[in-house]
């Protein structure tokens, strides 16, 4: 059975022969792993079950001085956060789209590598990624504080902005559906450590209907919908299932009860993530990491679960802690790499 088939089994609510996985690492963490696994390429050493296609954070133009600009015109300061960066300035200083043009959703850079990567890693489950897929795209353009106040000050503008972002994403989904992909993996953080940033009412009024449009476009093509959304957002799961969500990530154990949720949503929603990146990975011992990984594998034995650290692993995590979960995953009975 291929990795692709195992993930499909999990998504269909069936019991897999082992718990599948797909990890994420920041540049600093990747560098540690790369030197450990060298000369084997990291992508080959880790045997991720998800083949990530397109680009989760998009493409950037170097501006110098640790600054890059994304295709939407947003400038990111990467002097500290080397992976994504922090938004600098404001592309939409006023609550209007009159003077702004969206980029071309069919920019070939998002699609050019799909065929080649599927040829190389065809056994894996293929996900086309669309990061910053709604609320996050809106605040990176408008500024987070501005956008949060716009919900009250300029609601029509917020509706227009979110729907225009969705139109851009739907055009990308339709293009991606021309390839032999399995799912679209959206990313959009709505949560805080406790509760939603904008609260459930504004989320349902503004974000939910637009998500429904995007998810429908994916389902119309017969593919699965994944979402990555950081923070304490489990109150939204029933709503998200209602518009066709199939898999939720990052499943942070610091903000939600992972054991109870796997059981409660078995057969209705798959979880991807679960290993503590705020506590265990940076601060725990190798044995702590092993113990938490074993607990998660036991929870996922009946299905409904894809293992991962609950965020891209940061550079403060010791190599031994990363290897601890990688080794446990790869040594599961029932798993045999065929690549």
């Amino acid at each position: 059975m291929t990795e692709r088939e195992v993930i499909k089994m999990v998504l269909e609510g069936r019991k897999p022969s082992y718990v599948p996985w797909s990890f994420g690492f920041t540049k600093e963490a990747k560098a540690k792993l790369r030197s450990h696994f060298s000369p084997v390429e990291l992508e080959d050493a880790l045997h991720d079950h998800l083949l990530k296609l397109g680009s989760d954070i998009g493409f950037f133009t170097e501006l110098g001085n640790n600054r890059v600009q994304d295709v939407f015109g947003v400038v990111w300061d990467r002097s500290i956060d080397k992976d994504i960066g922090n938004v600098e300035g404001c592309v939409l200083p006023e609550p209007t789209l009159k003077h702004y043009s969206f980029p071309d959703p069919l920019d070939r850079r998002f699609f050019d590598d799909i065929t080649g990567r599927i040829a190389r890693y065809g056994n894996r489950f293929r996900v086309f990624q669309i990061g910053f897929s709604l609320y996050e795209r809106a605040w990176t353009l408008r500024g987070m504080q501005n956008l949060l106040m716009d919900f009250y000050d300029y609601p029509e503008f917020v509706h227009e902005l979110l729907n225009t972002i969705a139109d851009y994403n739907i055009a990308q989904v339709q293009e991606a559906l021309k390839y032999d992909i399995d799912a679209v993996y959206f990313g959009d953080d709505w949560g805080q450590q406790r509760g939603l940033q904008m609260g459930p009412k504004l989320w349902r009024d503004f974000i939910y209907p637009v998500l429904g449009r995007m998810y429908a476009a994916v389902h119309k093509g017969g593919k699965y919908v994944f979402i990555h959304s950081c923070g304490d957002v489990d109150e939204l799961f029933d709503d998200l299932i209602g518009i066709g969500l199939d898999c939720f990530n990052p499943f942070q154990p610091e903000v939600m009860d992972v054991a109870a949720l796997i059981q409660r949503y078995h057969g209705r929603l798959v979880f991807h993530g679960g290993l503590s990146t705020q506590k265990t990975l940076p601060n725990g011992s190798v044995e702590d990491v092993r113990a938490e990984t074993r607990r998660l594998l036991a929870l996922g034995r009946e299905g409904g679960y894809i293992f991962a650290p609950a965020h891209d692993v940061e550079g403060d995590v010791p190599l031994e802690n990363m290897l601890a979960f990688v080794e446990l995953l790869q040594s599961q009975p029932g798993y045999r790499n065929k690549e």
Partner: protein
Amino acid sequence: MSILNDLRKSVIDGDMVLTQELMQKALLESLPPEQILKEGLINGMAEVGRMFECGEYFVPEMLIAARAMKSGLTLLRPHLIKANIQALGKVVIGTVQGDLHDLGKNLVGMMLEGAGFEVVDLGVDISPQKYVEAVKEHRPDFVACSALLTTTMPRMKDVVLLLGEAGLRDQVKVMIGGAPVTEKYAADIGADLYTPDAASAASRAQELVNKQR
């Protein structure tokens, strides 16, 4: 007094225009500035904090309430100075070195201001040395440190240590917060106060100051 009740309500509703109108009205009626501050603005923000803590309000409601409060405070400030009304205390606030996230820090600053504190906002990516310099310059009652990342959280410990080395540790209370920060971490590094959100940061700081008086 109904005008102050209305003022309080306008802050809770985040209605900046109404807050300004009612503030002007209260000042025209020569109500004591300290009473306007406490019953109108501070009481309003305390209710906003309570609603945030119990999950009725979220960040947008807090932001527009703080904006309304601030616009009222701008009109009131000259009258507070004239009447020699002192702030409840002074807080130097910043996001720690290596961290550029500012929303959590801004919310804490707004809530502290709404609780009657004078807030000196140092900004983001603030080195321990800069906190120490700011403590020397501003003589605050509190130093407030924010961090969103596990990678930057350890800088909070450096702030506590450097304040000690500079002989300033007894003069200020150190409060910390941010997504990965916990009560235990605060105890481990010798910080005085951890709070999980902006609303409780303001109310706990208020309690500490009142206890000392």
